[in-house]
């Protein structure tokens, strides 16, 4: 019984870390630039397809990480130049535009790979004995990588002035340029970082889920709700949102059923949007 409980706890931690990695790209773009990239899920999907292609080519799975970051980064670069920048990063305009972009990306992938499910094999097979309980090694690897990426990002954000510069740029672009911030480049790099991170998230989750053109839809919904609950533009918000949404889903899916978990998440998000629209830890 004790070990079963332990497994459950690890499962919750796992769900939370995975959701945090999935949210990360959106948190960067939406939390810092105020651009709700509705196509975020599609970037994850493209990352997953990149992993599929890398694996099918017989290359080591690790190579999928830079490949997906590159592919999604380049798409992000093009999207920023021809969609986001011409719309001057306006929240509503970019929301509509990225919604259309999501449709386009889904159709393009469908055109190239077809509608059917592709499966990516788990790159690290086997299981580890974890306090007397067998646990899939890949999940443990995934948790380790997620935790390191998040911790690294947290430290960097705390130390490097880039976070404050991005806030300065979004709040007062004219003054930002005056104090020496190359605002065009900084906005572009921030957006591209967000899409590249979505690509990496796609590589990480590809072996755990059917890879298909519409897979991104679920991710954008969960990511958006996590940000709504947690609050935008802060690392604490990212963790709190991923923790609450991911934890809630994981616990309720295990104890009741996935539909109830989904309903509870919807209910909680609506409650937050209504009563506390800036989330638990908003940017001051």
């Amino acid at each position, binding site marked *: 019984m004790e070990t079963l409980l332990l497994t459950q706890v690890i499962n919750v931690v796992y769900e939370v870390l995975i959701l945090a990695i999935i949210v990360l790209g959106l948190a960067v773009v939406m939390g810092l630039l105020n651009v709700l990239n509705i196509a975020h899920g599609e970037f994850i999907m493209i990352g997953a397809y990149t992993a599929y292609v890398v694996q099918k080519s017989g290359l080591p799975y690790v190579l999928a990480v830079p490949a997906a970051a590159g592919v999604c980064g380049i798409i992000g670069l093009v999207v920023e130049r021809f969609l986001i920048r011409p719309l001057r990063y306006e929240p509503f305009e970019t929301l509509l535009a990225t919604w259309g972009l999501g449709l386009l990306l889904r159709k393009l992938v469908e055109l190239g790979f077809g509608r059917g499910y592709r499966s990516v094999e788990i790159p690290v097979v086997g299981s580890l004995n974890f306090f007397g309980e067998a646990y899939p090694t890949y999940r443990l690897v995934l948790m380790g990588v997620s935790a390191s990426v998040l911790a690294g990002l947290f430290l960097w954000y705390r130390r490097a*002035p880039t976070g*404050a*510069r991005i*806030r*300065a740029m979004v*709040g*007062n672009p*004219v*003054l*930002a*340029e*005056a*104090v*020496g*911030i*190359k*605002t065009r480049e900084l906005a572009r790099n921030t957006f591209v970082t967000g899409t590249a991170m979505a690509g990496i998230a796609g590589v990480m989750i590809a072996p755990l889920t059917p890879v298909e053109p519409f897979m991104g839809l679920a991710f954008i919904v969960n990511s958006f709700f996590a940000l709504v609950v947690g609050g935008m533009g802060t690392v604490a918000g990212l963790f709190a949102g991923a923790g609450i949404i991911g934890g809630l889903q994981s616990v309720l899916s295990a104890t009741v059923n996935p539909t109830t978990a989904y309903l509870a998440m919807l209910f909680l998000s609506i409650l937050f949007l209504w009563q506390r629209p800036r989330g638990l830890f908003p*940017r*001051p």
Partner: protein
Amino acid sequence: MTGGYFEIEKISGGYGSGRVVRDVSISIGRGEVVCLLGRNGVGKSTLAKLACGFLRPLSGAVRLAGHEITGARPSENLAVGLTYCPQERVVFDDLTVAENLSLMRANRRLDDLDRYFQVFPRLSERLRQHAGTLSGGEKKLLSLVRGLAEGSDMIVIDEPTEGVQFENVVRMAELIVARKNAGASFLVVEQNLTLVDRIADRIVIMDHGEVVLSAAASEVDREDILTHLTV
């Protein structure tokens, strides 16, 4: 080249294709403070923005230390030693006072700013507060400190004293004069004669987008200035 350190040569321009400023030339020497005066809406701020790269001139040229910088981006201009302090939205409201000052410093340290904090203790008391909570006058102090701390040799300031109380206007003047004596040049758009009297080497008055008077400060009567400002 006529020998000025910062040269605005026959600049015309404005917002879009509008011509708010027409053929304005101002040459500022090394260690010279030029005060730009004129009634509201005659194009003073527009000229400052044209000179610093926030607006693209329709014609004319801007030179800094002999190098043409016409149409260069403000961030590039800062890199070659041209600082600009705007008239409006002068600080980052969402950032703390400390962040406003340390934003572009790799090490985030503010040790070398002690001399400014001694002059304006209000700022050092509020380092952890968001700049948006400062009064309009305090924001102007913060903006000036930020501008002076950038260490540029050419500093353009648009209406530094708006909302600033008298004692602090005097202190601003002292800081500007000290930097001037250290070799920096200034173009200060200003209405407040308390400041102008204390810092100006030369006075330029604009009206309807053109320069109508340019003379050494010692040669300009206060009466003359007031006539131009009130008519």
